């Protein structure tokens, strides 16, 4: 049976791993390559690298990091942050990234999803969506969640699926950094309305939150950062707890 995936997210700035608390406060948590290797060794199923400084830094730094990760890490990984062109995706995949995630650039020019999936295949195109509730409606936000749009989360998710996205990474801005659990209601709705995998992101605080997002949120994978980086939830312990709750995981 296909297992549920546990995905640590490593925010990258100036070649170092950082984690934003509510996307603002940045704390240093180490060297990305070393951290990635450690995560692979303790049973992380996949990794996401998010270059939060992608618009300010040259591509060379990230590409160099991607190459080093691909050299040393034996599990799949996704790279996101500031990706808006076919050439950029081509460079990242050639350096050994398994998937890329696009976010604001897809909202600004939805055809980009078609172009990328046609050229590289749906399997390597993740569309990341940041959303929060405004007057009870889930609205897509841009630029790391700072710019609201009028776009409905569910409409947008269905549109990118039709355009060829292979996976959705949904971050609830209402839950991110709160450690109060994932946005399971919205996740379950996404999972039932779409036929591609959904990654839950934002709100992980304890092991029960992961159990809930797989059971109630019907998520295919769950992503978190600080609870893993600061050892608050050890991944082996998390996966054993999931298994004990009859959730299929790779042990």
């Amino acid at each position, binding site marked *: 049976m296909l*297992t549920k*995936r546990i995905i640590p997210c490593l925010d990258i700035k100036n070649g170092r791993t950082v984690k934003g608390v509510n996307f603002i406060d940045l704390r240093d948590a180490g060297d990305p390559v070393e951290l990635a290797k450690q995560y692979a060794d303790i049973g992380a199923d996949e990794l996401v690298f998010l270059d939060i400084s992608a618009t300010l830094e040259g591509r060379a730094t990230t590409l160099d990091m991607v190459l080093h990760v691909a*050299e040393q890490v*034996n*599990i799949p990984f996704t790279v996101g942050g500031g990706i808006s062109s076919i050439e950029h995706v081509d460079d990242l995949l*050639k350096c050994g990234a398994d998937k890329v995630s696009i976010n604001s650039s897809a909202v600004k020019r939805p055809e980009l999803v078609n172009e990328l999936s046609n050229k590289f295949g749906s*399997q*390597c195109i993740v569309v990341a969506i940041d959303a929060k509730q405004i007057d009870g409606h889930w609205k897509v936000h841009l630029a790391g969640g700072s710019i609201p749009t009028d776009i409905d989360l569910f409409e947008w998710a269905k549109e990118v699926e039709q355009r060829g996205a292979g996976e959705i990474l949904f971050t609830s801005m209402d839950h991110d950094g709160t450690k109060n659990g994932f946005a399971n209601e919205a996740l379950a709705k996404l999972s039932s309305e779409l036929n591609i995998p959904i990654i839950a992101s934002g709100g992980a605080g304890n092991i029960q939150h992961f159990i809930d997002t797989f059971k109630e949120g019907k998520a*295919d994978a769950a992503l978190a950062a600080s609870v893993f980086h600061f050892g608050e939830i050890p991944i082996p312990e998390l996966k054993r707890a999931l298994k004990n709750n009859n959730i299929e995981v790779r042990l």
Partner: protein
Amino acid sequence: MKLVIINYGAGNIKSIQFAFKRLGVDAILSNNPDEIVAADKIIFPGVGEASTAMNMLKESGLDILIPTLKQPVLGICLGMQLLCKSTEEGYTKGLGVFNTDVKRFSNDVKVPQMGWNVIKDLKSDLFEGIKEGAYMYLVHSYYAEHCEQTIAKTDYGINYASALQHNNFYGVQFHPEKSSLAGEKILENFLKL
């Protein structure tokens, strides 16, 4: 040991090259027929769309060469699928090494299958030291139907062939280069064949 990864423009070749480097083997990337024929072992990779990949093979004449190879050949992911008789993806005729067809998963399951799943009923030297039910990383929307050449089985909505073998030709649907220690062991086994 001369290991060649066929480089015809399809797929995440770097990851495969790095995986062998971690095993201490420097793989050569090549689409040169002479270099491919002279190799001890050959990797036939592939990620992406089947008809596009097949056209790339035809442009370099590799579609004729590959089925004639005599040394161990390992097709990975789309590489394995292209070694089958046909695939529903782009209604593409395959190289016909494996006696089976490739179909699309039904929409009863999420497509693509993305993540870690188990391989069972293992029947090949390729899986020496690999436990029944070992986890492998898979990303695919199309699957090979069982035939007498099936050497590993996986369940995703239906039970399908996650690995095939015919004489010197081996094919795996999963990505051993991304499947942690168990995947590395399979690549190591291939080098010993």
